[in-house]
């Protein structure tokens, strides 16, 4: 039996909600076949089957909150069945094995066994099993035991080794066993190493209890005050890299809730529940709330309002469309480019405050998060390195990210490392807001509705222009109002004089 447990799939999550159950008891599943869909604070992910086999039991139902480490589905591995057959195929061993099971139950000799030692992270296995694993080039710590108290059995090792992912496609316990030379120890010292290596990376971080990281990375984590146990390594072997620490530091990307959203879970809840006034406060909604409170009660927020004449940007957009219909770029992409230029001129808003070390860290990359409204609430995918992207590239990436957000397909990488956030609520309406900063960033800008407005020019001439309100919230610990005005002035300058964007393009 293999218990498929909820693993920490990133950023120190502790629980997840079951969104969908994709298999039924009795169903055959192959390795990596999705079993359930879960939603964590930030992401939706599928829990794949670590083994090929038959679904024995599903421990949760849709809507359940499952804690990390708890079993979600039990799958009887194909290896188990095969090994049983193998046992009965060999009369001498078969006899004894058959009766051993009964004996074991009778005598209760396994009572003294210690269960899986979660403290050390070591799996239980007798030395002989460990030797087989070593000879087969399998890391036994990656194997889920099916023996008494979760002990890894020889059969588990052979089944794991026969795992298609390991590159020994379609090999059964028996064939691997015979290929390995013999189950009889001492006879097969050589030649065993030919058996393939399993893909260790994918499983490593989920099964191992001990974080793997180099001393330098550990030092970095200590400097940041980050617990390595909370971080998922991304180097393919589950090892934690420096980037993982900084990504973790950047924090989950959730920003202010401007728009009332009704999540799918709420809808379904309302349909089922007779008392429609109760909305479950869970999942992303709760994560947003947590993040908002953290930001609001940590950062002294100040919001500064202004208005921008976007007529010329709209004109540029229209003329571009005429030149090449393919280059139909949304104005938001121009805003983001303009923001990058403004941030370069007033870098204090592309920064993070490291209170512990008493440092304001000016970020060298311009990673602009875009608040996206989804069924389940607000989420902030990040356009990375805007300084290296053209307006058109910004536009393309923005579209892709928003699409992924709507489809709940964002990955941890998509929503990490932001340095500044924008919230484009203009298309929906609104004239002003007091956005909450996407902690631990320092500032955020909301774009409101663009409307035709009579504008009095310097020569007292009244003209009709497209005007958009902006709300710019900043961390008053890091900067003061004057800086914020400076910053918005730069932004307005670029938007009102689109040619400057051309001149300043790097």
């Amino acid at each position, binding site marked *: 039996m293999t218990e498929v447990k909820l693993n920490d799939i990133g950023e120190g999550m502790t629980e997840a909600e079951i969104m969908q159950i994709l298999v039924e008891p009795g169903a055959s599943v192959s390795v990596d076949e999705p079993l359930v869909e879960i939603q964590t604070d930030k992401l939706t992910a599928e829990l794949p089957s670590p083994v090929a086999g038959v679904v024995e039991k599903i421990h949760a139902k849709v809507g359940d909150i499952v804690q990390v480490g708890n079993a979600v589905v039990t799958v009887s591995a194909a290896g188990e069945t095969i090994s049983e057959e193998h046992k009965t195929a060999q009369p001498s061993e078969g006899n*004894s094995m058959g009766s051993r099971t009964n*004996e*074991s139950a009778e005598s209760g000799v*396994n009572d003294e066994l210690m269960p899986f030692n979660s403290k050390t992270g070591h799996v239980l296995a*007798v030395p002989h099993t460990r030797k087989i694993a070593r000879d087969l080039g399998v890391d036994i710590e990656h194997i889920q035991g099916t023996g008494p108290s979760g002990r890894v059995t020889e059969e588990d090792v052979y089944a794991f080794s026969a795992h298609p992912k390991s590159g020994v496609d379609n090999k059964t316990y028996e064939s691997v066993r015979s290929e390995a030379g013999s189950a009889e120890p001492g006879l097969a010292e050589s030649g065993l190493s030919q058996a393939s290596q399993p893909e260790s990376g994918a499983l490593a971080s989920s099964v191992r209890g001990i974080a793997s990281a180099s001393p330098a990375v550990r030092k970095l984590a200590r400097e940041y005050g980050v617990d390595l146990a909370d971080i998922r390594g991304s180097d393919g072997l589950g090892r934690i890299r420096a980037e993982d620490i900084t990504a973790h530091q950047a924090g989950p990307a959730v920003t202010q809730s401007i728009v009332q959203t009704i999540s799918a879970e709420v809808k379904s809840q309302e349909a089922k529940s007779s008392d429609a006034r109760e909305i479950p406060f869970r999942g992303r909604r709760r994560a947003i709330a947590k993040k908002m409170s953290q930001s609001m009660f940590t950062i002294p927020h100040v919001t500064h309002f202004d208005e921008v004449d976007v007529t010329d940007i709209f004109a540029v957009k229209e003329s571009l469309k005429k030149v090449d219909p393919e280059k139909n770029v949304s104005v938001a992409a121009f805003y983001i480019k303009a923001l990058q230029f403004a941030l370069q001129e007033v870098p204090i808003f592309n920064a993070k405050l490291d209170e512990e070390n008493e440092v304001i860290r000016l970020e060298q990359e311009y990673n602009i998060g875009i608040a996206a409204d989804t069924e389940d609430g607000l989420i902030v995918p990040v356009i990375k390195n805007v300084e290296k992207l053209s307006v058109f590239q910004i536009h393309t990436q923005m579209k892709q990210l928003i699409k992924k957000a709507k489809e709940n397909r964002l990955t941890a990488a998509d929503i990490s490392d932001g340095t500044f956030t924008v919230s484009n609520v203009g298309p929906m309406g609104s004239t002003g807001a007091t956005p909450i900063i996407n902690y631990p960033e320092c500032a955020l800008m909301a774009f409101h509705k663009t409307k035709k407005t009579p504008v009095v020019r310097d020569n007292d001439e009244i003209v009709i222009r497209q005007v958009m309100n902006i709300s710019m919230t900043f961390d008053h610990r890091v900067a003061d109002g004057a800086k914020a005005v400076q910053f918005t002035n730069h932004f307005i300058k670029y938007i009102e004089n689109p040619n400057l964007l051309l001149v300043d393009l790097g």
Partner: protein
Amino acid sequence: MAISARVETRQMTLVQAVTDALRTMLRERDDVLLLGEDIGKNGGVFRATDGLMDEFGEERVMDTPLAESGIIGSAIGMAINGFRPVAEIQFLGFIYPGLNQIMTHATRMRSRSLGRYSVPMVIRAPYGGGVRAPEIHSDSMEALFTHMPGIKVVVPSTPYDAKGLLISAIEDPDPVLFLEPLRSYRAGRGDVPEGKYSIELGQAATLKEGNDVSIFAWGAMIPKALKAAEKIEQEQGITCDVIDLRTLYPLDKDAISASVQKTGRAVIVHEAQSTGGVSGDIMSVINDTSFLYLRSPIERVTGYDMPVPMFSLEDEYLPNEDRIRHAIKKSVNF
């Protein structure tokens, strides 16, 4: 061309085989002497030296006072001076007054004299329980001696081995403690070749072959281990290697590791107390040579950590077939 050899054998008990070995060596070598309490006229408490004084005379088969220290000390003196004395201690439990002689002189003479002198003597002592003997008569204190560097500890379990091993012990250039399981003295008979033959010390014997568990035992535990192994094979199809270690110091590490590496499991049976028992050394050999082959923890079936009790409770103290079978099952079902 077929080669055939005819060996004359006689059915003997273990104690008769001991006598036969002594007689053979007394005949073979003039330097062999026997000494001990009542071994002469009386033929020894278990009749192990019966008739030898008549045959070889008082100068070669000597009755001594009831003083173990004196017996062993005298033997040491004779050994250093060119004899090959065989001293009898009536029961192993009586040897304690002689421990000082063994530890201080017999075991370290070779080392002390930088190899100039050796002590080619044998101490024979019946040991072990199961015969309803009074207090101290049933002790199984072999581990006291395996812990003494410089003395070999040999325990036969069959008449054949008793003769062959005793002859080797007498011919050994260093002191040998030869422990005779008194329960096995007259428990059965076996074919014993006439004349001189020897069994190399330090070599274990595989009495039964199997694939699931290795059982290590010696002396009077061997018949029990064999019976338990046969029974469990009939009942459950579990097959056992039954290995008679025969020499407890030095242990046959090769035999131990070869068997454990074959079966992956081990059960050690001895009637001595568990703590500090020879089983600990066997476990250490397994650990050193065969750790990676283990499929289950090593099991021990031993006496309890207490003096061997009075005879009414003796059967509770001694390992029996059921306890051995339980240990085998536990080992296999782990």
